[in-house]
């Protein structure tokens, strides 16, 4: 992409991030010193099982982690600026043109009470200062760009009147509306049918290439990672186990857990008895390492 900063300076740099859920005297660590860098125009996969903390990293980047979650150490540098301790007003100013989100569940992420057109136009008016007709016209353009069929009609429709795949296309249009530099995609295709998933992935990739945005792509599906990500970070228990080029991670994983995760991914082109669940001994070892980490870093929290 033209005008993109050189690749050596990351657009997003998560440094040694510690995050814990505190409450009722309990202190549950979620992220244990996680670090990752995303270059401009890079699609960066964040893989792990549930509870690994991958969604929490995405939320912490956007500054929308739930209230009992506290960042107890480390930093999130967006274009060199730490965004972990922004005021609400500063965070809001960063949204739209700085960052966007493609959420997991298209069925619940659009407001059922407002028309599709209004939900695309409102970000344009807020961040780009467009007036109502200009925002409406741009919303139509955006729907065309994300290949929504009969866009004029969809603008006037309510979310319940269109399919899940179509809603995810609308959410992608919203995420890219103000041309953000970074988009967090939080399991954006998990809720979709497989054929729709493929198209939505293609759409995300095309929009990303066209706009030159970076994407933090959170998913549990190594297949999706292999098809769309440039680099991958493997997360377990809030710790980064491995990070690297996608091809290297998929074809020559270094960490046992990455290898186990690949062996545990079902494939329709191989007999089923080749599937290997992640060995319990490995899971136990990783959990023990996480606890040992907590003991060594008791100062956090």
């Amino acid at each position, binding site marked *: 992409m033209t005008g993109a900063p050189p690749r050596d300076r990351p657009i997003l740099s998560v440094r040694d991030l510690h995050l814990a859920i505190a409450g009722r005297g309990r202190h549950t660590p979620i992220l244990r010193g996680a670090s990752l860098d995303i270059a401009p125009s890079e699609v960066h996969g964040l893989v792990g099982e549930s509870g690994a903390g991958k969604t929490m990293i995405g939320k912490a980047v956007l500054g929308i982690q739930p209230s009992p979650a506290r960042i107890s150490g480390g930093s999130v540098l967006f274009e060199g600026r730490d965004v972990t301790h922004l005021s609400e007003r500063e965070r809001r100013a960063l949204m739209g043109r700085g960052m966007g989100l493609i959420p997991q569940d298209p069925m619940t992420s659009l407001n059922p009470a407002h028309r599709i057109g209004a939900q695309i136009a409102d970000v344009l008016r807020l961040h780009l200062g467009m007036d109502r007709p200009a925002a409406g016209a741009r919303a139509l353009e955006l729907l065309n760009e994300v290949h929504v069929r009969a866009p004029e009609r969809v603008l006037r429709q309510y979310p319940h009147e269109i399919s899940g795949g179509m809603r995810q296309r609308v959410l992608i249009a919203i995420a890219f509306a103000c041309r953000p530099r970074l988009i967090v995609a939080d399991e954006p295709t998990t809720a979709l049918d497989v054929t729709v998933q493929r198209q939505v992935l293609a759409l995300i990739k095309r929009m990303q290439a066209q706009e030159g945005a970076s994407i933090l792509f959170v998913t549990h599906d190594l297949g999706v990672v292999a*098809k769309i990500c440039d680099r991958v970070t493997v997360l377990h228990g809030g710790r980064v186990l491995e990070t690297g080029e996608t091809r290297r991670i998929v074809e020559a994983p270094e960490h046992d857990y990455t290898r186990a995760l690949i062996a545990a991914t079902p494939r329709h082109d191989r007999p089923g008895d080749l599937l290997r669940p992640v060995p319990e001994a490995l899971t136990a070892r990783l959990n023990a390492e996480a606890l040992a980490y907590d003991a060594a870093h008791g100062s956090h929290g």
Partner: protein
Amino acid sequence: MAESVLLEAAGLRLSLPDYSRKPPFGPAPPVDILHGIDLAIAPGDTLGVVGESGSGKTSLGRTLVRLHRPTAGRLLFDGRDIANLTEERLRPLRAQFQMIFQDPQSSLNPRRRVADIVAQPLHLHGRAATRAEARRQVDALLERVALRPAHGERYPHELSGGERQRIGIARAIALRPRLVVADEIVSGLDMSSQAQILALLRELRRDLGLALLFISHDLSVVRTVCDRVMVMLNGRAVEQGECAAIFASPRHPYTRRLLNAIPLPDVDPGWVARTADNQLGEELSMNVKDSVALVTGANRGVGEAFVRVLLDRGAAKIYAAMRSTDGYEAPDGRVRPLALDVTDHGRIAEAAAECGDVTLLINNAGVNRNRPISDDDALRNARDEMEVNYFGTMEMCRRFGPVLAANGGGAIVNMLSLLSRVNLPMIGTYCGSKAAALSLTQGVRAELAAQGTLTVAVMPGAINTRMGDMNPPPLEDPADVANAALDAVEAGEEDIYPGVMAEGVSQGLAADAKAVEKEFAAYLPG
């Protein structure tokens, strides 16, 4: 399989009331969910049922364990027809077929301990005389699904998703059933929990000799658990057979689309780009049921088959277009004869105005003069063929495009031929007209996609139409070809090659076009 069948369904149909369309007074109108499903499961057999949302796979599972009562068809469990048994008479049988649900969170009572949940069916069916006996069995079941007895003291919300699904499995196998229907039981889980549950299912099958009907949207998951697979689309089974065979060479376009859509964990930079071409395809699919179709050349051959198949599949209205409607007898009240000669362009424009409700246009009319180029009348023959096969199709697309757009997009099926792809000697001019029509179809497709219209090119081999075709066997049944074309409309498929012959040739063309062309050239007589 014939020697022992545990569960057998034949022509299973299901309609449920559609409350969204309920009139102020009177019952809600029925909506057809399953359109005649045939399947058989032997003891210890595993059948995967694959489909996307709305395919009817969940309804099928529920009907097989008689949570729904089928509207028609037979449902034999262990040789006994259970399709219409009352709940009372079903109850003693229920222990033998169990269901595991998609969402363990909502299918487990949140206020009861795990041990009580697992013990419940034991008490209900009198399999445990005392509490101690029940507890002993529960502990054994928990161990069976790789949980510890301590898990029995917890409540469902204290468990992880994978653990909850194990509880669902433990409860389902508590009565030692002979058949378990598992509906999307790993879809909410991440890869590692999913792999554990899948491995557990494989173990249980082996150790307990369970028959398993495994419903999933994910073909990869089905492959790991099942021997056989059935692919569902809009309440029909479009393909059924051994996993290894179907996954290696899927016959139905929809199966192929499903397989192609799954991202395997192999790096493939072109994968995304290959999708982009077909981006609008899926969203352009439409239902044949309730459509208003127009079929040209409807009085004979494949056209006649189209009318019949459209009636079967619940089209609301069919304009049966033919050169002259004299002597034509409509097979059903939904069929409207329409005098239309596709070489009369003025008449096509009129027809487009008359039939403003068409949503599915089937350009079937075609002509084959069946003469070689050495014929004296070759030029006139070629012009006749072009006039019908090319200009007729073009004019129909041109005039009906706006009609389809006004009705929400719809679809066009252009009946072409394998000979659109490869020429056959002695009928070269015919093949030329068909090749031109294919080229036209591709151009029209891109143009009409923008308005939401799907354009399908159907390229069958020789069809048994008793219309004096000189083509070599095997001959395809016209109804099969018509069904394949309508399947493509429902699957959003753009190019299809129905039949073994066409299938083979298209693969051959993809592999080595020159070799196929040479082979076809060898049909020159003498």
